């Protein structure tokens, strides 16, 4: 994984979606999300949220929940975390995705006081991801793989010895019996 350069601290592809139309007695909050690479790239991407009303007033102390669009038995929104806006209506959430490629993020602000909830979206291209899942390696795998060969050699040696015990003995007995047979016949008769 390459260390990030300053150039990488750049705003990524960004889309904006405006919240729903305000109801008569409520003020619409506009949730604006941007994603930037973190100063330390391996920490992931910073999802910046700016929550303002249409006339630019910050909405503070509002909870914003972040979701990522995923495909798992259909399209789903994966909850990835939440943050609360500060006095400027700003907040951020650092997100290190599990995989590379395009990520589509949805940020939702909950309804708060007379502000109705709203959502913003952004997509970014991840060039860094959390350490990918890898199965836990089998302990002593190399050793375990060698054991069957050792035992197999031992088994073969035993079988060779068995074969020698029976075939070698039989051969010894048969040969000696044949060699001596004529002599014996003569000697006895």
């Amino acid at each position, binding site marked *: 994984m390459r260390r990030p350069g300053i150039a990488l601290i750049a705003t990524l592809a960004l889309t904006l979606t405006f919240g729903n139309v305000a109801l008569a007695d409520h003020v619409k909050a506009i949730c604006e999300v941007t994603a930037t690479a973190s100063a330390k790239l391996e920490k992931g991407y910073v999802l910046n949220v700016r929550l303002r009303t249409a006339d630019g007033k910050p909405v503070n102390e509002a909870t914003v929940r972040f979701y990522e669009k995923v495909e798992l*038995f259909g399209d789903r929104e994966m909850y990835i975390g939440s943050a609360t806006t500060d006095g400027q209506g700003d907040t951020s959430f650092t997100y290190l995705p599990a995989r590379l490629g*395009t990520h589509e993020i949805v940020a939702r602000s909950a309804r708060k006081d007379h502000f109705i909830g709203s959502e913003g979206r952004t997509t970014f291209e991840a060039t860094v991801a959390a350490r990918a899942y*890898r199965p836990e390696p089998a302990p002593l795998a190399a050793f375990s793989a060698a054991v069957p060969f050792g035992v197999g050699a031992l088994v073969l040696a035993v079988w060779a010895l068995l074969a020698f015990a029976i075939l070698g003995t039989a051969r010894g007995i048969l040969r000696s019996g044949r060699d001596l047979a004529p002599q014996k016949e003569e000697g006895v008769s």
Partner: protein
Amino acid sequence: MTPGPTDRSRRRLLQVFTAGAAGLAAAPLIPIAFPEADAHTHAATAKRQRQWAMVIDLRRCDGCKKCTEACQAEHELPKSFEWIKVFEVKDKSGGEYFMPRPCFQCEAAPCLRVCPTGATFRDDEGVVLVDQVNRCIGCRMCMAACPYGARTFNYADPPKASNPFANPTPEHPVPQIKGTVGKCMFCVHRTDDGKLPACLEACGMQAIWLGDLVEDVATNGTETVRLSTFLKENDAFRYKEELGTSPRVWYIAGHGQHLDT
């Protein structure tokens, strides 16, 4: 490298001793191990490489056993076969809770290791399956080896199959075959079709989550969470993990209390 479509025939070659486990998992995971190489093609790939995992939230389980019933209906099992069994556990302090136990699809599965014929194998999504059709000889060594009692032996014929032309496969072992061993298989026949496992869908408490370790995501049907965060924040644990089995099923401790998360 482009991960191909699910290819379950490949795995048989890889089942050699414990090293098999590592090698097995490595083959489909090459695109994950080398993310740069895969970055361009990943999004374009139609079928994602999944590594299934399950999370069971004991805070939510009320012990209704709907999961067990759904499982038995899905796999046409007799009532005594509880591939997902709900245990009523009494802890040392007198508390009681329910603990559904599917097969844990252990990464270092003892059942897989002891199988003499390779009838038990791991598919490329990390699910441990049993080839009842051709391989299993019914020695029940796996039942002795499984520390979780997750396997059932077909002592008798299974109930008559609803589909008279049913053709059981390891991925869809319905009906079961007498004289062989069966177990929970994370409903791979359903997940292959983009459907959630039967137990998960049946759980009214939404206590069962199915997750993908590769994409790090899990869902219980309505909510979707980031798997690793979910496990970490809820102090998830794996049952009898100290046995070195590396289960693919996590529990979130609790005792059926109502939660409003």
